[in-house]
């Protein structure tokens, strides 16, 4: 077999993806959002825990008044908070988990499909509660195959994509369901058996679900349709092929992606 790059690990990565998903799926059941929700994280262990959240009743430079889920009103000086998220910055659930409503967002993700795996990093900005934009890069691996009379040939293409990405939040409650689109170019790499390969376009569109968290990180998963292009020459050893093989291939993949989003 012509081994251009050995990466038949897609099923393995898929299993890892499922493991990632397990804690995500088991997240809390509280589906209610809090009006005027705010979160304060304290420097010291102060009010039951080191964090208090609820509806912000009063916000001035000194004293914050919050009505908690239990109905208590809590007042504290602002300078006792290590970090805080005000209503314009987050969307808060009653269990204290929240989404970022705006600001810088970074995501790390892994997508898998048949003969495909990709790892991605996106540096983005949440413009408002509906739109995200970002720029991303990472590693894409695609493979196509064909047979000759004496062998199975797997042609592996590894590329580094650079793309812009946009997200639109369709449903914004405890979970956010969003549409995603990205477009860019992938810098395909020559390997031992890839004599030459051109850079190609990469596109992806899909739908995903983002889960809230009390931490800076929150999990998400996506289903998307991915397309990329590669054109080049592969060195394929076969008794029936008398030359190198020129290829021109569009990879169409239905991806399952799991990832982690980080805010500030």
């Amino acid at each position: 077999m012509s081994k251009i790059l050995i990466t038949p690990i897609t099923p393995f990565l898929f299993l890892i993806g499922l493991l990632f998903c397990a804690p995500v799926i088991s997240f809390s059941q509280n589906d209610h959002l809090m009006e005027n929700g705010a979160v304060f994280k304290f420097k010291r262990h102060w009010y039951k825990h080191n964090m208090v959240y609820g509806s912000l009743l009063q916000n001035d430079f000194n004293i914050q008044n919050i009505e908690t889920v239990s109905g208590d009103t809590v007042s504290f000086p602002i300078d006792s908070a290590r970090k805080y998220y005000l209503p314009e910055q987050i969307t808060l659930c009653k269990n204290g988990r929240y989404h970022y409503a705006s600001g810088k967002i970074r995501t790390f993700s892994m997508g898998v499909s048949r003969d495909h795996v990709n790892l991605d990093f996106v540096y983005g900005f949440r413009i408002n509660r509906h739109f995200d934009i970002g720029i991303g890069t990472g590693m894409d691996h695609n493979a196509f195959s064909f047979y000759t009379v004496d062998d199975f040939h797997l042609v592996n293409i590894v590329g580094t994509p650079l793309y812009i990405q946009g997200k639109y939040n369709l449903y914004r409650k405890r979970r956010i369901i969003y549409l995603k689109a990205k477009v860019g170019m992938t810098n395909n790499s020559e390997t031992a058996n890839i004599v030459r390969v051109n850079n190609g376009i990469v596109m992806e569109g899909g739908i995903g679900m983002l889960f809230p968290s009390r931490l800076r990180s929150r999990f998400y998963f996506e289903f998307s349709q991915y397309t990329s292009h590669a054109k080049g020459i592969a060195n394929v050893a076969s008794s029936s092929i008398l030359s190198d093989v020129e290829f021109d291939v569009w990879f169409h993949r239905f991806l399952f992606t799991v990832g982690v989003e980080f805010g500030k």
Partner: protein
Amino acid sequence: MKKLLIIIACLPILFASCTKDNATISLTFKKGTAVYADIEEIRAVELVSAPRMIENAGKIFIGENYILIGENGKGIHVLDNTDSSNPVNIGFLQLPFTKEFFVDKDMIYAESQYDFIKIDLSDMNNPLMLDRVEYAFAEAIQNADGLTLVGFSYETVTRSFKTDSEEAEELRDSYYLYYDYNNSVIPASSVPSSFVGSERGVKGTVNKIAVYSNHVYVVSNSKLHTFQDSPSNIMLVGSTNIGWDNETIYAEGNHLFIGTQSSMIVMDVTNPSSPIETSTYNHPNSCDPVLPIGSIAYLTLRTADFTGCSGDENTLEVLDISDINSPELISTIPMTSPYGLTMINNKLYVGEGMNGMSIFDAADPANPVLIQTNTSIVAYDVIEHPSFPNRILTTSDFGLSQYEVNSLTMEMIFLSEIAY
């Protein structure tokens, strides 16, 4: 929300067909284009014609006083070898599209497209066609004009096609892609095996035809055809499926040894009309003439790119066939590129193509010992002279050479060459 989750859960099923490659590959391969003709006209061609130049030599047979050299797809050259130092081309047997023939007791048995032919060569100056079994190997394949498929013309082409196309599927099953007159692909499985691979003709004596007890056996790619032979005619008595990629056949005792690309099949011909498979010895994929002598069989396994020999073996295997039901490997001797082989005076000669010829001392047949490898000659096949035990003939891309071998020093003295 629940509906949305259900829709999301169903997405993998809905979009499963969205994972595919739209891949076009462009590569160079051997293309066989169907040639159609009036088969009756071909059958009516006069058998004997004037001598002609040897252009594309194929099979070679050495008789007492003559040498037969196949001209791939055209016929057989007859050379008078009464004077070994000066063989004379005396005639040509016109057998269009023939690539396999065998000689036994001055009788030529030739495979010719659909037909099997028997020719009497007892008078080499006046060969005589004794019988022709029409459509012995396949039913006639005809085109819309009523012409019959008589063969394929081969060329090397570079083509582009999708990886899920018919061409790509065929490339999986065949070394060649076969095209009809209208340029549509013909599945290799539907091409009569007597037509397949005429471009892969082996120079030498590696046989697809064997004779045993008034019967003639012909191996095709997947079948063993059995003919009953009488002095004046031949008759097809049966065809048996025996697997794939059959390459050679050799009769020894009351057994047939059939070499395939992945095995050696032994068939019992105690009842010559009904060969029965006795045992199979499997080996890695390769091209493999087999030479059984007594209780030992020698098997050369060859691999080479672009020759239709897949795998990664280049060896001489020595097998114990004393129990014919269970051949056992005795030893494996590494070779460079072994082709044909023969045993003369306890010496095993193995042609190594462009890498020369290796000579083994086989006084102990189970343990052949390499004496020398003569790299100064090119030898695809090594042929024993039927009358002179110290004389051998070798085939190459350039011609048929005759040598006198000193049995003590194994020095080879060049006698003559028939260039082609």
